[in-house]
C-alpha cells in the first residue's frame, strides 16, 4: 500500500515539475515575442506560410464537407418541423461558434503541429540546437519563437477559411441540392448570427492557436533526441492538443453563454 502512495506522490511531484517548466517555457516565448516582430518579421511570415498556407488545402477540403454534412443534417431534421429555411442558420452557428475553431485546431495539430514537433525534435537530435547554443545564438529565440508565433497567427486565419468554405458547402447542399430558397437561407443567417457569435469563434481560434502551437514547440524542444523519441513526441502533440482543445472549448463556451 505504501508503494502505491509513493507512486502517486512521485507522479504528482513530476506532474507539478513538468507543469511549472511548461509555464516558464511559455513565459520565455512571450518574453522574446515582441522583439521578433521588429527584427525578424520576415521569419514570422515564413512560419505563417509553413503553418498556415501549407495547411490550407486540408482545411478547405474538410471545411467544405463539414459544412455540407451540417446542411444535410440540419435540412433533414428541420424538415420535420417545416423549418427548412433555418438550414443555413444551423450550419452557420455550428461552424462559426464550434466546429470552425475546434475542427481547424485539431487539423492544425495533425498537420502543422506534428510538423513543428518533428522538425524541432530532429533539430535537437542532430545537434542543431546545441550548435546554435555554441554559436551564442539562443535557439528559443531563433527557432521556437518564430514557429510559435507563426502558428498563433495562422490558426485564426485558417479557422475563418474553414468556416467560409463550410458555409459554401452548406449553401451547395441546402440551396442547390434541396432547393431551400437562397434569399431565406442567407437572410436568416444575417438576421440571427450576431457579432457576439463571431467573436466567440475568434476568441476560441486564438486560444486554440496558442495552445496548439505551444504544445507543438514544447514537445519538440523536450523530445528525447532519438528516432523513437521524435515519434513519441509527435504522437503526444496530437493527443494532448486534441484533449486540451476540447477542454478549453467547454470552458470558453461555458464562460461566454
Amino acid at each position, binding site marked *: 500500500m505504501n508503494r502505491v502512495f509513493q507512486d502517486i506522490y512521485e507522479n504528482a511531484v513530476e506532474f507539478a515539475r513538468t507543469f511549472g517548466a511548461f509555464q516558464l517555457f511559455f513565459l520565455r516565448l512571450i518574453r522574446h515575442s515582441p522583439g521578433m516582430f521588429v527584427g525578424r518579421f520576415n521569419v514570422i511570415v515564413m512560419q505563417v506560410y509553413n503553418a498556415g498556407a501549407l495547411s490550407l488545402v486540408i482545411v478547405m477540403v474538410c471545411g467544405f464537407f463539414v459544412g455540407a454534412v451540417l446542411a444535410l443534417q440540419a435540412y433533414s431534421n428541420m424538415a420535420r418541423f417545416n423549418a427548412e429555411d433555418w438550414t443555413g442558420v444551423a450550419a452557420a452557428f455550428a461552424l462559426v461558434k464550434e466546429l470552425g475553431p475546434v475542427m481547424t485546431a485539431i487539423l492544425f495539430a495533425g498537420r502543422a503541429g506534428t510538423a513543428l514537433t518533428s522538425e524541432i525534435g*530532429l*533539430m535537437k537530435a*542532430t*545537434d*542543431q540546437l*546545441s*550548435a*546554435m*547554443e*555554441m*554559436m*551564442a*545564438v*539562443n535557439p528559443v529565440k*531563433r527557432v521556437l519563437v518564430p514557429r510559435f508565433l507563426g502558428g498563433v497567427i495562422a490558426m485564426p486565419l485558417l479557422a475563418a477559411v474553414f468556416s467560409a468554405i463550410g458555409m459554401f458547402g452548406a449553401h451547395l447542399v441546402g440551396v442547390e441540392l434541396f432547393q431551400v430558397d437562397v434569399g431565406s437561407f442567407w437572410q436568416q443567417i444575417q438576421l440571427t448570427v450576431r457579432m457576439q457569435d463571431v467573436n466567440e469563434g475568434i476568441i476560441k481560434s486564438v486560444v486554440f492557436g496558442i495552445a496548439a502551437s505551444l504544445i507543438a514547440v514544447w514537445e519538440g524542444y523536450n523530445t528525447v533526441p532519438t528516432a523513437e523519441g521524435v515519434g513519441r513526441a509527435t504522437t503526444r502533440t496530437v493527443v494532448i492538443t486534441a484533449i486540451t482543445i476540447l477542454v478549453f472549448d467547454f470552458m470558453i463556451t461555458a464562460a461566454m453563454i
Partner: protein
Amino acid sequence: MLIGFQGLLLFCAATDGLGFQSLGDYSENLIEIRDLKYSREPRPIFENLNLTIRRGEITAIMGPSGTGKTTLLRLITRQLIPQQGAIYVDGVDIATLTQAQLYTMRQRFGMLFQNGALLTDLSVFENVAFPLREHTALTNRLIRHIVLTKLHAVGLRGAADMMPSELSGGMARRVALARAMVMDPDILIYDEPFVGLDPISMGVIVRLVRRMNDALGITSIIVSHDVEEVATVADRSFLLSDGKVAASGRPEELRTANSELVRQFMHGMADGPVAFHYDAPGYAEQLLGRDTE
C-alpha cells in the same frame, strides 16, 4: 570625434564586462579543470578530474568509448554543468556566468560537432554565414567574401549553393569546420573530426587544423579515437579512463609509455585493462542455458 566614439564602443563591446581579454588574466593555461565530478545516473563519468589545456597548443583528448570525451567538451562549453569542481576559461569559472556572459564567452569558441550539426533549412553558404549574420552588422558583400574564403579553405567553395541534405558526411563535416572558424574564434573544439572522412579529406583536415592553430594563434581541442591522426597533429594528449586522466604527454611519449592501459589503447590491442566485451554471463552458459530463452 565620431570615429573616436565608435572606437570606444568597439573597445567596450570587446571587453564587455567579463575581463576575459584583460592582460592581467593572461596565463599559459587557457582552460583549467579542477576536481571535476559529473555523473549520469546510474554511473559516474568523472571523479575528481584534473586537466589543463595550454594556450596556443593542440590538445587531444582520447580514451575508449564511453569514457565521457564528448561529455567533457560539453562541460567545457557549459552545455552541461558539473556537479562538483570547477572549469576555468581564462581564469573565469564558467559556472558563475550569466546567460549573457556565457553567450559572450561562446563567441570565442568554435565547435565542430561529430555529425556536423548543419542547419538543414539553410544552404551551405547561409550555414557558414549564420554566425556573422547573428553577431555582426557586416554588409552582405563583406559576409560573402568571408564565407567564400572559409569555404575555399575547406575546399567547398563550389558547394556554396548546395543544401546540407545534398552533402556527403565528410563534406558536411568540412562545411561545419568552415562555420566553426568563420568568427575567427580563440578556441576551436573538434568532436571526432576524422570519423567518416576519406583519406584525402582527412589529410587536408589534419593539415588545416595544424595550419589554423599556428597561423591564427588559436587553441585547439580535439576529441578523437584516431591515434595515428592525433599523433601527427596534437602537441599534447590526455588519455581518459575511469573518469580520470590515465596518462598525458606528447603523442610519442604516450606511445612508449609503460602503462598497460596506454599501450592497449595506443596500439589497439584487444586484451588489456579495457575489456572488449561488455559485462555478460558466460558465453556457453548463455548460448546453451534454457533460462535465457
